[in-house]
């Protein structure tokens, strides 16, 4: 049964089940993509992202269900016709001997060349363009066996580009790339999607980048699709933490970043922070493995989202409201319980005036007060 939407879409998966040796690993995968949309599969290692991509690109027979391209069942299409519509970039990194980068890129012209694979002037121009797009001119003549992993990754992308596909399937395209080329690769994909209406299906490990580049996200977890939707629907603290089995708070939807594990035990130090001043101290304490509590922070403070991931206890006040008696009382209780207080140096104004009171309270109670990172590291709490 084809729905109207599937008939119009560039690519549609209908109840696809994928797996090896006739045993389904992931069942009931359904989604559809319009021309120029970018879909990213995210999920933990071994969740089956590659298996899905292999089934989409017909390297692996589907257990059941169909993959449709332009409304045609892919299983019924000739592999030659598929090759003109879909290009792939795999994690398999065979490096053929004595093959230059240009030759490897030229392999992308295969579906268009004649019986002996000779390149026309037009083919050569397209190859040159693809190499220029990934900024690989400087090593285009080098042998594939001599370049770095990151360079090879860019050459493999150029190869896929010069296949002039309508759909491009990429399995972890950003691996081996440094941050500059990661961004560049995703920008190339984005601009291809935008200007040439190429549909992109890929898997990414960098969830922060996935959020920024994708139109649709599929969360793959073990034997099922945990979630499917637009990035803003998927990238919430709860959904991402559940997908990767993270502790609550370890993933920050606000920053799209993750924090390392929170130090365990009873808090031995209280950090008075705010406005980003607290974060460097939280990080040092986390690295030293010292449990701590933090406060008083507004819930819309940048420190708050990090403190929530790393501190045992966070004394917090609602966004944009003056810190009140309730928070001060809770904070004093925390101060009483520890020997060391960190004064991170956040300027004080109307809303957070209470933090000055806390500092005075700590001084009066004879606590050790530290205000720079070196002192904190030397303290060896």
């Amino acid at each position, binding site marked *: 049964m084809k729905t109207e939407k599937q008939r119009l879409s560039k690519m549609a998966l209908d109840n696809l089940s994928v797996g090896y040796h006739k045993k389904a690993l992931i069942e009931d995968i359904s989604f559809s993509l319009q021309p120029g949309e970018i879909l990213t599969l995210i999920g933990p290692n071994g969740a089956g992202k590659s298996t899905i991509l292999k089934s989409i690109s017909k*390297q692996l027979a589907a257990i059941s269900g169909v993959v449709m391209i332009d409304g045609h069942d892919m299983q019924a299409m000739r592999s030659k016709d598929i090759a003109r519509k879909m290009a792939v970039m*795999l994690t*398999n990194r*065979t490096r053929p*001997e*004595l093959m230059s980068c240009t030759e490897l890129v030229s*392999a992308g012209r295969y579906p268009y060349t004649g019986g002996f694979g000779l390149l026309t002037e037009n083919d050569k121009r397209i190859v040159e363009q693809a190499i220029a797009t990934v900024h690989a001119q400087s090593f285009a*003549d080098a042998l594939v066996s001599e370049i770095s992993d990151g360079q090879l990754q860019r050459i493999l992308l150029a190869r896929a580009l010069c296949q002039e596909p309508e759909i491009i399937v990429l399995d972890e395209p950003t691996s081996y790339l440094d941050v500059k080329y990661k961004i560049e690769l995703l920008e190339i994909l984005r601009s291809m999607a935008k200007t040439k209406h190429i549909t992109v299906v890929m898997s990414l490990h960098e969830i922060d980048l996935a959020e920024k580049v994708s139109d649709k996200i599929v969360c793959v977890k073990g034997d099922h699709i945990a979630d499917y939707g637009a990035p803003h629907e998927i990238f919430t603290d709860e959904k991402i933490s559940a997908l990767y089995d993270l502790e609550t708070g370890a993933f920050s939807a606000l920053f799209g970043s993750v924090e390392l594990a929170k130090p365990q035990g009873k808090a031995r130090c209280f950090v008075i922070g705010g406005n980003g001043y607290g974060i460097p101290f939280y990080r040092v304490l986390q690295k030293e493995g010292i449990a701590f509590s933090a406060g008083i922070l507004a819930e819309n403070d940048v420190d708050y989202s990090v403190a929530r991931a790393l501190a045992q206890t966070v004394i917090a006040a609602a966004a944009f409201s003056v810190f009140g008696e309730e928070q001060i009382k809770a904070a004093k209780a925390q101060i009483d319980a520890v020997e060391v207080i960190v004064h991170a140096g956040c300027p004080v104004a109307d809303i957070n005036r209470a933090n000055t009171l806390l500092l005075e309270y700590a001084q009066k109670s004879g606590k050790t007060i530290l205000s720079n990172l070196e002192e904190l590291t030397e303290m060896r709490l």
Partner: protein
Amino acid sequence: MKGVTMTLSRKNTIRTVLVFAAMAVLFVCAAVWNISIGSVKISFGQIFQILTHPDTVDMTAYNIIFKIRLPRLLLAAVLGGALSLSGFLLQTFFRNPIAGPFVLGISSGAKMFLAIVLIALSQRVSSVSVGVTVLTAFLGSMLSMLVVLAFAGKIKNMSVLLVVGIMISYICSAVTDFFINFANDSDIVNLTHWSHGSFSAASWQDVAVSAAIVLTTALAVFCLSKPISVYALGEGYAGSLGIRIKPLRIALILFSSVLSACVTAFAGPISFVGIAVPHIARTVLKTSKPILLIPACFFGGAVFCMLCDLAARTIFAPVELSISTVTAAIGAPIVIWLMMQRRVKHSEN
């Protein structure tokens, strides 16, 4: 930038032309030497005279050339090309330059099968036709290929597969020798000689049949240049470019078997040519393009075997060495060097 790529591709073109020209020159030289040198020396002038005015020369030289040396050198050329191409196909299949019909035990398997069948038949019929010999060798080749593939399915490490191949080779040779011990006296002379590999006793019929089979197969292989070029990228990429992998893999194995079977049927097992020549071809052409490598392997193999046969005949004349003695002396060091190189690369990674 454009200027640089232009000169690079022009440099490659010049290299290709030079290599093929050198091969043509060597081919002619090897042919002339093979005709001229031997127990009876025939000068270049005589050869020229025989070719232009055959009726004016003495019959001995004429017979030596047309009944012995010419068919022998042509057989060496055709089968040398076949061996080299057979090796190239196996290297493509395994994506490893250290694969060949001899080291994988395919030649020896075919030899054993052929020896057993020939001995069994010789008890019943007086002579065995060329067709039966070739067909039997092909069956033997396919059988041993299947054994190797069964091992290859389990053993992913090429070095281990080579050790297995060499062991298979020894077992098959032992079995062959065992059967030869029980053969009739009259068969033994031929079989012993053949089982060590030789181009001697080449007849025009041998040349015609082997040339027909080998040249047809070589042409078919050449037509596969395009899919082979992409197969090197791995099956995932090849498949995504529209190649049907399974038929291609079957074609590689089938053609390789036909070629090595032809060699086994007419000359017995010949070692290392299948690895040495494709390796030299890759090194001098500095390319992995099958459209260049396939003809280079074929002609290179032809020249290589003609020269090796010349050496086998003449170095210790009148004693004639088996052709494998010569090819092994040149080929085995190349294989060792290749394995060392790959070791070094692996440990670097």
